[in-house]
């Protein structure tokens, strides 16, 4: 029972932690529409606090945009139409998942480029590691020479003994 209460309390605490900026007075009566509004809001970037979605952001403009999204949904716009209406005003900048175009090519190819770069560097490291093994080979040769010399010395000693 204690454990159960603990979990309930934890979930409630977490809930307040993640309950987002959407204010109660913004919410739509229709739960389906409201759910769609929340999903769309999560994908729209707040132009003021630029690394938050309008769903997360407490900025006044985000509040206005959330209301706008809901008004458009109530008028019967599709999710895509709602997003495009904001793209028309603020550009693809407002999409947290921006389309691939001239301005985002570096953004999208960045991870791949970094991966290739990392691969090249790692290969570089392994190549130097190989250099180390050739040094090891030289040591082997030296060892052989040493053994040879020891053998010769022993042979000479044996001859001297005779």
């Amino acid at each position, binding site marked *: 029972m204690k454990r159960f209460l603990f979990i309930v309390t934890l979930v409630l605490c977490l809930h307040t932690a993640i309950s987002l900026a959407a204010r109660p007075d913004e919410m739509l009566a229709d739960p389906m529409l409201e759910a769609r509004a929340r999903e769309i809001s999560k994908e729209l970037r707040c132009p*003021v606090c630029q690394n938050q979605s309008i769903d997360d952001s407490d900025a006044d403009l985000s509040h*206005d*945009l959330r209301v706008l999204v809901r008004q458009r949904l109530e008028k019967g716009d599709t999710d895509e139409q709602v997003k495009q209406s904001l793209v028309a*005003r603020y*550009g693809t*900048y407002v999409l947290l998942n921006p389309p691939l175009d001239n*301005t985002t090519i570096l953004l999208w190819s960045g991870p791949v480029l970094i991966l290739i770069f990392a691969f090249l560097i790692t290969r*570089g490291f392994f190549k*130097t590691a190989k250099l180390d093994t050739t040094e090891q080979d030289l040591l082997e040769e030296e060892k052989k020479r040493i053994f040879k010399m020891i053998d010769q010395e022993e042979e000479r000693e044996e001859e001297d003994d005779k």
Partner: protein
Amino acid sequence: MKLHLLPLALFIIMIGFFVCRLSLIERGNMPRDIPSVVLNKPAPGFNLPPLLKTGLKTADFKGKVTLVNFFASWCVDCLAEHKYLTDLASKGAVLAGIDYKDTPANGQAWLAKNGNPYNVIAIDRDGHTGIDFGVYGVPETYVIDKQGIIRYKQTGAVTPEIISDKLLPLIKELNK
């Protein structure tokens, strides 16, 4: 490959990026500026009630070059740019003010206190016209040509440099 030089090389590349970015800021290209998509497009349709005397609607832009300035009584930077706008108005520029997300009483009191450089002044209480223009931080200033097309957008306060280097030449050009 001299691998031990790699961190140094990466460091130099990184410094290179910083220098490039900082020099862009020096030239007024702020990282937080959003590339405007309303440039060279017709001004959005709107019809706003007046803050003083007459209101403002899209059709009013026809036939003259207009500077549309979004401001608010609660906005600190707006006060900073106010004297430069007054200056600009005295040089004959047509200024249309839009009081953004403000109460009429506050807006009117602000103008009474600081002076009114605007030829017409409207109020956008819910901020929807601002959103249609792509406003995300007042003050913002738009230059609209005789055909009602947006030709320039300034996010943040105008400075004497912006007025002399950009706004005045552009107004002159568009008035030809």
